Structure formats: structure tokens, C-alpha cells
């Protein structure tokens, strides 16, 4: 079982695509494997015949365990298969165990320079680079090495972001068919039905348990008048006409948030054990509901993108998130997150922070509410935004100041453009 994503510890073999006795070539898909993030393809790393399938469909095995044997036709496979040590979680270095012992000349897959560790290869990094990665919390799996053989060297880390863990329920590249859905609880007469956690749910559970518990959250709510924003949006969309996709409220909110963060660097930060990283760049994580879970693709440099660019990025990322085709680059590295349940008629809610970020805003529905304006009660479109703050990084006044700026921007959208 290979480590098909940086944080994968075990894989569930969903379906074999090759039969025992079938010929295989390097690169051909052997099976579909569900990882903590997505359904991915396990490919053959050698040419030969698939002699034996060791793991049954539906079984979950740790990374490093032997799942099959490829060899010359007629070759004997002994029962005991050496399992290479399983990958270590949380460290910068991963060992991907040898998946397929091969008798024929092994076509060793060259270790790709990005994220996924190939069979039998370990991350090549200079001792200095390893030390820097360790000290800054960078996951070496996510760094592209520019040295010989893909060696990660110091200069490769100078641009890399610190990752303590990937975003909740993040999805890696996959070309496989979608996972068969876990059955929705339907009454069968039995008092209950146990459905095992899918990989994505396991990851969400693990990630968020390390959020709400350890991170001291506090919450600030503000109600924003969205009349002007609504007018601006209508006007912009009329301008666009048939040319482009429409700009959504979410796009406006993401842009306003990014601009507000650029002015309130204190909220655009990561808590890092013994220091706080104040980001000078703004990358907004946008929570997207996917089947059976949640993922946060990142809109990079959201403060510098136009509304149209944000809209395009958001749409594209959301689409690929739902298809579980996001690359690690696309779901990690956000400096702040936005979660929007407005489309589900939620007035307001409190979101859980994505560690190591210091804050997240929860967007409710835009609703007509009676508001006092100039002495009379008038109906206005209003939006409730709730900010969750990590009190180790953001204090009440700091968070409130940011929210004030955000509110001002949304209430005076022309200032944003």
C-alpha cells in the first residue's frame, strides 16, 4: 500500500481492476484505493503478471503493507510478505513501503518531485533543509526539491509555507471513479446501523478535534447591511451581461475579507507553538461542502484578485473539490477561512477554526429584516457574520476592529473595487 497522499496512514482497497494472472505494465492501475482524502489509483511499479492479490476488496491496510505480488508467470509467491515500516504521521519524512516485490527487472518508478512518495523512495533533502523544515514545521513531502534527484535544499524552503497538518478533509489528485456512497441511514427495521467512517470523515474528525478543543475560541457577531452590496452586484452582473459568469455574494464577501485582512495583519496569522506567523499575503480558504464531507480549497492572493477572478477561482475550485480532484497545493496554505451556510437558510452560526489559522468567519443568509433608518423602520437586506478567533493570537478588540473594517467594506462596496 503506497502513501498516495502526504498524510495517508492507511488505505481501503475499494476495488481491484486487475485479475490474478493478468499481465500488468508499469503505470497501469491495479486497484482503486480510498485514502483519507480521495479515491486514488494504485498503479503497478513493474511489468509482469499479477501473481497474487493479498488484500480483499473492502479491506483497509496500513501504508507499507504488501497488497499484491507482480512477477514472472509461474513464479512462486511465498506466504510471508515483508511489510516495510508504515509511514510516520506528522513528521516531515515519510517512508513508502515497497508495494510490489518484483522478480523481473524492476522498473523502479522515479520519485516524483511533488507530494506523493513513490515506492521505495524516501524524501531526499539536505541535512540543512531537513533541519529547517523541522524547525519551521514545513512538511517536506509538499516541497518540490530542485537539487539532484529531486533533493530538497535550503532555497526550496525559502518559499514553502509552514504546514503543521493539511486542511481538514483535504482531497488529493485522483483519476478514479467516485467512492460508492455510504448508505444513508434508512429504516430497515433494525434499531441502528453502523456505518464505518470513510477516510474523509476520519480526517475531518481528527483535524477538528485538534481545533475546538485545544484552540481557545471566542466568537464575535456583527450584522451587516447588504443593500449597497446587493445593488453593486446587480449592477456588475448587468454589465457582464452574457459575457461572463455572474458575480456572487460569496465572491464579494471573499474579496472584502481579503482586503480587510490586508489591513488587519493581526488577524491574518498562524499560531505556531512558540511564535505567531503574521502573513503578508492573503490566501482565503473557502469551505466547500462535498459529498460526505467538507474541504477548504484556497483562493490565493485573494486581496489582489478582481471579483471576476475570485468568482472564477471559487467556482473552479468548488467544482473540483466536489469531484475530489484538488491537488495538495490547492487545499493547503490558507491564512484565513470563510465558511458560508447562507444558501441553507442559516441566520448565523459559529465556525470552527482551521488550525494553524487564527480566525474564520461564518456567513449566514442574506435576509430582509426590519431596521431603523432615520427614525423609521424599513426592510433592509441584512447579513450576520460570526467571526471565530483564536484567543492566543487575536484579542477581542483586534477581532472587532477587523470585523468593523469588513462591515464597512461590505456596506460601501465601491470602496473595494
Amino acid at each position, binding site marked *: 500500500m503506497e502513501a498516495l497522499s502526504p498524510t495517508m496512514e492507511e488505505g481501503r482497497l475499494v476495488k481491484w481492476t486487475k485479475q490474478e494472472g493478468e499481465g500488468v505494465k508499469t503505470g497501469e492501475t491495479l486497484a482503486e484505493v480510498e485514502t483519507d482524502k480521495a479515491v486514488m489509483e494504485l498503479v503497478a511499479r513493474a511489468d509482469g503478471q499479477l501473481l497474487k492479490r493479498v488484500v480483499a476488496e473492502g479491506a483497509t491496510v496500513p501504508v507499507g503493507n504488501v497488497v499484491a505480488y507482480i512477477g514472472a508467470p509461474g513464479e512462486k509467491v511465498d506466504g510471508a510478505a515483508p511489510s516495510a515500516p508504515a509511514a510516520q504521521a506528522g513528521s516531515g519524512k515519510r517512508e513508502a513501503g515497497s508495494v510490489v516485490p518484483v522478480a523481473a527487472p524492476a522498473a523502479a518508478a522515479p520519485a516524483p518531485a511533488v507530494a506523493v512518495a513513490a515506492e521505495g523512495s524516501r524524501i531526499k533533502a*539536505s*541535512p*540543512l*533543509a*531537513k*533541519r529547517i523544515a523541522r524547525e519551521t514545521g514545513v512538511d517536506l513531502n509538499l516541497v518540490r526539491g*530542485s*537539487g539532484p534527484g529531486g533533493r530538497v*535544499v*535550503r*532555497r526550496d524552503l525559502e518559499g514553502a509555507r509552514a504546514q503543521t497538518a493539511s486542511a481538514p478533509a483535504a482531497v488529493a489528485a485522483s483519476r478514479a471513479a467516485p467512492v460508492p456512497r455510504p448508505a444513508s441511514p434508512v429504516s430497515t427495521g433494525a434499531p441502528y446501523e453502523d456505518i464505518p467512517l470513510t477516510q474523509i470523515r476520519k480526517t475531518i474528525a481528527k483535524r477538528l478535534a485538534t481545533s475546538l478543543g485545544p484552540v481557545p475560541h471566542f466568537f464575535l457577531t456583527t450584522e451587516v447591511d447588504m443593500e449597497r452590496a446587493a445593488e453593486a452586484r446587480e449592477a456588475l452582473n448587468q454589465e457582464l451581461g452574457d459575457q461572463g459568469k455572474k458575480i456572487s455574494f460569496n465572491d464579494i464577501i471573499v474579496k472584502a475579507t481579503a482586503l480587510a485582512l490586508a489591513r488587519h495583519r493581526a488577524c491574518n496569522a498562524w499560531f505556531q507553538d512558540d511564535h505567531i506567523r503574521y502573513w503578508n499575503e492573503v490566501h482565503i480558504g473557502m469551505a466547500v461542502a462535498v459529498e460526505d464531507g467538507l474541504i477548504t480549497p484556497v483562493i490565493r492572493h485573494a486581496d489582489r484578485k478582481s471579483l471576476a477572478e475570485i468568482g472564477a477561482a471559487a467556482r473552479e475550485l468548488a467544482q473540483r473539490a466536489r469531484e475530489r480532484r484538488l491537488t495538495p497545493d490547492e487545499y493547503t496554505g490558507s491564512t484565513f477561512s470563510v465558511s458560508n451556510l447562507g444558501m441553507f437558510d442559516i441566520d448565523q452560526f459559529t465556525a470552527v477554526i482551521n488550525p494553524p489559522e487564527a480566525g474564520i468567519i461564518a456567513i449566514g443568509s442574506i435576509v430582509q429584516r426590519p431596521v431603523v433608518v432615520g427614525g423609521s423602520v424599513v426592510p433592509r437586506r441584512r447579513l450576520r457574520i460570526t467571526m471565530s478567533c483564536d484567543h492566543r493570537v487575536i484579542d477581542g478588540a483586534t477581532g472587532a476592529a477587523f470585523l468593523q473594517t469588513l462591515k464597512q467594506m461590505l456596506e460601501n462596496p465601491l470602496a473595494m473595487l
Partner: protein
Amino acid sequence: MPTITYRDALNQALREEMQRDPNVFLMGEEVGVYQGAYKVSRGLLEEFGAQRVVDTPIAELGFAGIGVGAAMGGLRPVIEFMTWNFATLALDQIVNSAAKMLYMSGGQFPMPIVFRGPNGAALQLGAQHSQAWESWLAHIPGLKVVAPATPADAKGLLKSAIRDNNPVIVLEGEMLYNTKGEVPDGEVLVPIGKADLKRDGKDVTLVCHSKTVTPTLKAADQLAEQGVAAEVLDLRSLRPLDEEAILGSVGKTNRAVVVEEGWPHAGIGAQVVDLIQREAFDLLDAPVLRVTQADVPMPYNKLLERAAKPSPDKVVAAARRVLYLE
């Protein structure tokens, strides 16, 4: 500060030490009447007489042995080899007698002897006359080995060597005798065991000594034009090595190239590399590379000889590799 030649710097050192201590004497081929095969001992016979400036027959093993005996008897001999290539013949006295005498006699027999002469290649001296001796001699416990690159270092190190109560090997160079440099007046000793930072930098450490210092400095100039600030560390002492200076520099730059004029296999540079990888492993961003003479007997042909020696281009190429610039 006066500017003098390396040759004159050695001459001054010999003269000053012989004036200072009547036990110091010079012995070797052509050191007296001929004024020195390379004129290093010019004027010394006239000043000090035949007892203290002794011309010998062509018998290296013999006069090295006489030197050992003289040292055991309380004198402070300076034994000159016309070139270190001829010292192959005297090795038994250097390695088995001089290096081990103090140890084997339980401290009873002192050995304050200096063996000196030009080392390594010159120009078209051919295979048998271009041998670099650093590795052979630095290997032996009981010997100290120094290799000054500049006139100031030559004078300071030779004085320190003569005053040292241990057998000290001084590796000079035919091609260095004519080089000029500033040498401070008066009594200035260069301590044995201390390297010298010939050029400050931050991107890569270039370790060198003796004749490789000049091409390494030229390489540093070329690298500067390419935006790389190379640091040049002249070892000066090969045994003992200035470990602190080497590790301090690599700690700053995180990468190193070691330049030497000997052959690669078991050369003196290998010792430096061992030190760096052993003590500065976590600080290294790249493997340590070496630039050495080509692993062949030195060619006689001018162009082949040039191709076989370390050069600024080779040092630049190695530096760029450890910087991942190629």
C-alpha cells in the same frame, strides 16, 4: 610595511632565528657556497660560517639522519631538501626516527628539528619532480606540517617551526619563492595550527592552502561577478588542522569546496571533508566537493600539466555545483 618575496621572507626567518639561538643550524644541498638552490639561504654562510650552514652531498637519508642525531644531542637543525620529491629517500629518518623519537624514548630525546623545502608541482618538472607531500606527512603522528602560501605566513611559520620543540615539516613551493607580499617588520610569529581567512564571504567556503590559494582567490573573484560571495580559508597548517576555523566557516555558508594540489585518493582534502561531514552534518546544504590534481602522474607536456592541476575554473564549477547553480 615592507613588501618582500617569499624567498626573502624565509631568508629573514632563518637569519633571525640563527641570530637569536646559536643552536640553530642549516644543512642541505647547495645551502652554503651556492647560496641555496633557490637562493633561500643567500648570505647565510657569510654571516654564520660553515659550522652553521652546512653543505651536504646528495644523500638525503644521510643528512636527514645527521639532523636527527644533532637534535637528539640538543641542537636545533633545519634540514633543507632541494625539493620534497627527494625526501622519499629520507623518509625513514623523518617518519621512523624524527616523528617517533620523543614518544619511543619516553620523552628523553628531544626532537626540535625542521624539515623544509619546495613541495608539489612547479612548471614542467615532470612526474617524479611534482609530488605533493601533504597527505603523506600529515598522516604521521609526531609530526607537525605547515604550508605557508604568502611571504608573511612563510616568515611567521618558519620562525614558529624553528622554535617548536617538535619535528615540523614546512612545505614551500618553487612557484611561491618569487611571489611578493607585505611582511610585518620585527618579531611576528604565525602560530602553528591556525588557519587564515584570506577572503570573507557568506555563500560558500573554499578551503585551500599553499599554491592553491591564488587560483582559489581568483575563483572567488569570478564567483563574485556571478553574484556569489565565496569565503576563502587558507589552512596554513595541515597537521594540526584548524578545525574551529573550518567548521566556523562552513557553519556560516552551509557548503564547502576543498582545493588541494595533491591527488584525490586519500589526499589531504579528504581529511577536511571528513571533519566537515562529521562535525557539521546538519549544517550542510550540499555534499562537500573537492578540487584536486588529476589522478595521474604529473604530465611533462605544458598543456597537459595545466589541465591536470587545480584551476580557478575548476573551483568555480565545484562551487556552483554545491550552490545548485548548474
